[in-house]
């Protein structure tokens, strides 16, 4: 008779535990009742946002219908960035459904942390394809979450850069409509800017705002993303864009205009202390909140200006994806279908003011169009036009895995130049050098300049 060794004892214990676990594993009693996931507990992480509040409002109905218990963990954007990155990198399955953050999508999808959604979409037992209608998501909003034909997330938020402006102030300065080029905007700003009313205001996430200028002047972050990530911050085009942009911040913004969070920038517009506000639609739309301003009747919205090389409004998209480490993938998919579904998005647009949505049908809805038309500005059309334009592919620079640290460095450079700590030439040269270092450290092959 063989001796019981420690290894054999451990092996048999594991086998016995496995067998008993299998034996006591509950069958799926709810499958026959039409609630195959009843009793499943889902944990969802997402940014604190009106859309999430809308989900919470309607969550009881979803829970009742599916039997799934959902806990939506809403957090601020900085906390979300840090937490999701850590949870995914450590392979934690604590969150079943997570927010696909636009600028991190390249890294997360590339690392295999997001479950491909096609098997769920294509399975007729799991998805009514007509009801989900993947084709209804605007291509520009879907693009960052696709690799070839594989879909990794469904978008629920797409922020498009637009301009909100004071028609009365521009008319007074002799402009019947908002300047259509950055050069013209600078000329207007020089005429209009006073100590009491700044010509321009924007938010402090400068790696999100600066590219409106950078790309329009023919510059870019990288030579040819995603293939060639050689930084291109020292080109004449980039220098010109930086000069124009930082001049707007330094000369034509309110005091402290380099470092204004979106709510402060909005408050400046509410109080009549700035003539125009350039930011994402999700922020800009709030300048006409009649509870906070008496000036709403003087405001209108339009596209961001063009540069010598064209019009390059920016688009940031966020979506829901299934964490690869989740143990409740089918239930997670059930939640995503509901959360990014047509019905929820339309309800959210009409009841929570969620204009920055991602479905064509919602933006084409007559009620939505009516709700978001303000003094002749059709915000839904503006938003849709930017999404379509961005869908042409120029936003790919933001979804390369190495974008976040380079983007952070861009903020430092713009701040240093706009605050007069360095010249445009030196600031951009230093940015170029640091960006090259960041990329090389990340193992990216670049073609060093000079």
């Amino acid at each position, binding site marked *: 008779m063989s001796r019981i060794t420690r290894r054999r004892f451990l092996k048999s214990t594991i086998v016995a535990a496995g067998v008993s676990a299998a034996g006591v594993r509950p069958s799926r009693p709810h499958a026959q009742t039409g609630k195959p996931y009843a009793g499943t507990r889902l*944990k969802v992480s997402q*940014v*604190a*946002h*009106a859309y999430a509040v809308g989900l919470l409002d309607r969550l009881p109905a979803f829970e009742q219908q599916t039997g799934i218990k959902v*806990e939506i*963990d*809403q*957090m*601020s*954007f*900085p*906390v979300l960035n*840090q*937490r999701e990155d*850590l949870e995914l990198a*450590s392979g*934690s399955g*604590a969150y079943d459904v997570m927010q696909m953050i636009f600028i991190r999508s390249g890294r997360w999808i590339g690392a295999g942390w997001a479950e491909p959604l096609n098997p769920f979409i294509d399975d007729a037992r799991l998805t009514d394809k007509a009801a989900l209608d993947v084709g209804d998501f605007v291509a520009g909003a879907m693009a960052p979450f696709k690799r070839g034909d594989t879909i990794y997330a469904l978008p629920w*938020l797409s922020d498009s850069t637009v301009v909100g402006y004071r028609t009365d102030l521009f008319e007074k300065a002799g402009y019947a409509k908002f300047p259509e080029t950055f050069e013209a905007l600078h000329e207007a700003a020089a005429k209009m800017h006073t100590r009491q009313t700044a010509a321009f205001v924007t938010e402090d996430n400068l790696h999100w705002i600066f590219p409106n200028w950078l790309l329009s002047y023919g510059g870019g972050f990288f030579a040819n993303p995603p293939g060639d990530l050689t930084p291109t911050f020292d080109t004449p085009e980039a220098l010109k864009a930086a000069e124009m942009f930082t001049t707007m911040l330094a000369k034509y913004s309110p005091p402290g205009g380099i470092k204004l*969070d*979106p*709510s402060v920038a*909005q408050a400046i517009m*509410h*109080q*009549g202390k700035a003539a125009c506000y350039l930011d994402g639609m*999700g*922020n800009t739309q*709030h300048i006409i909140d009649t509870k*906070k*301003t*008496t*000036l709403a009747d003087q405001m209108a919205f339009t596209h961001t200006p063009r540069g010598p090389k064209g019009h390059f409004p920016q688009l940031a998209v966020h979506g829901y994806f299934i964490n690869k480490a989740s143990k409740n993938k089918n239930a997670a998919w059930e939640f995503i279908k509901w959360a990014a579904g047509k019905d929820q998005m339309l309800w959210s647009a009409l009841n929570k003011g969620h204009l920055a949505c991602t479905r064509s049908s919602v933006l084409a809805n007559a009620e939505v169009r009516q709700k978001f038309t303000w003094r002749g500005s059709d915000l839904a059309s503006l938003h849709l036009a930017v999404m379509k334009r961005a869908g042409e592919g120029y936003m790919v620079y933001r979804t390369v895995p190495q974008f976040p640290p380079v983007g952070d460095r861009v903020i430092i450079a713009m701040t240093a130049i706009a605050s007069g700590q360095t010249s445009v030439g030196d600031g951009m040269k230093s940015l170029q050098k640091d960006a090259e270092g960041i990329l090389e450290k990340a193992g990216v092959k670049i073609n060093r300049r000079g």
Partner: protein
Amino acid sequence: MPPTLLFSPTLQNYADLVESKFVRSLMNSTVTAVSTTILALLLGVPAGYAFSRARFRAQRVVSLWTLTTRMAPPIAFGIPFFLIYKDLGLIDTRIGLVIIYLTFNLSLVIWMMRAFFDGVPRSLEEAAYIDGAGIATAFVKIALPLAAPGLATTAIFTFLLSWNDFFYSLLLTRSEAITAPVAIVNFMNYESWEWGKVAAAATMIMLPVVALSVVVRKYIVRGLTAGAVKG
């Protein structure tokens, strides 16, 4: 709508907070900070006394070794702690936070209390030994009461370090054990920041600290100046 100097004050933001999850995070802060302070004192004060009075080999090395947890910035330990906690199931638990705070605060308690005990004349304890007291009695009845101002100072520093911690709470909690300093950041919505709630929450976070400081302020002053002038 420009801001005015005269305005109607409101308590609405406090009312909103009371009805929100913020109360839970405040409770988490209280439980973790108080538990950490009590445990750190229970373990650290006798250790500080031992370092002050005992003479043993490698005493200097051992006392320096206790400081190693404070020799690197917290972020250096962040990822290892997260991975260990994930495996142990301690993420998002109050006990997990207490252990982490204890790890970092124990050395502070030991070193601070050691200095306070050094200021208590040994001759008092030696007199007690002559009268038949043991080490424990001399510690509890002689040294500890005389080091009370130091104890109060150490307690409040330990409490403050745990109460105000942001980094480990951000890293090691999700929604159940989240503490107030992290919860306050979550009022920064994607579209706009809820400044009213941020201000109300900040006031609620400050209040216990201010109250505690007022209660023990005379001990703190005495503790901080103990031994400053010999005589």
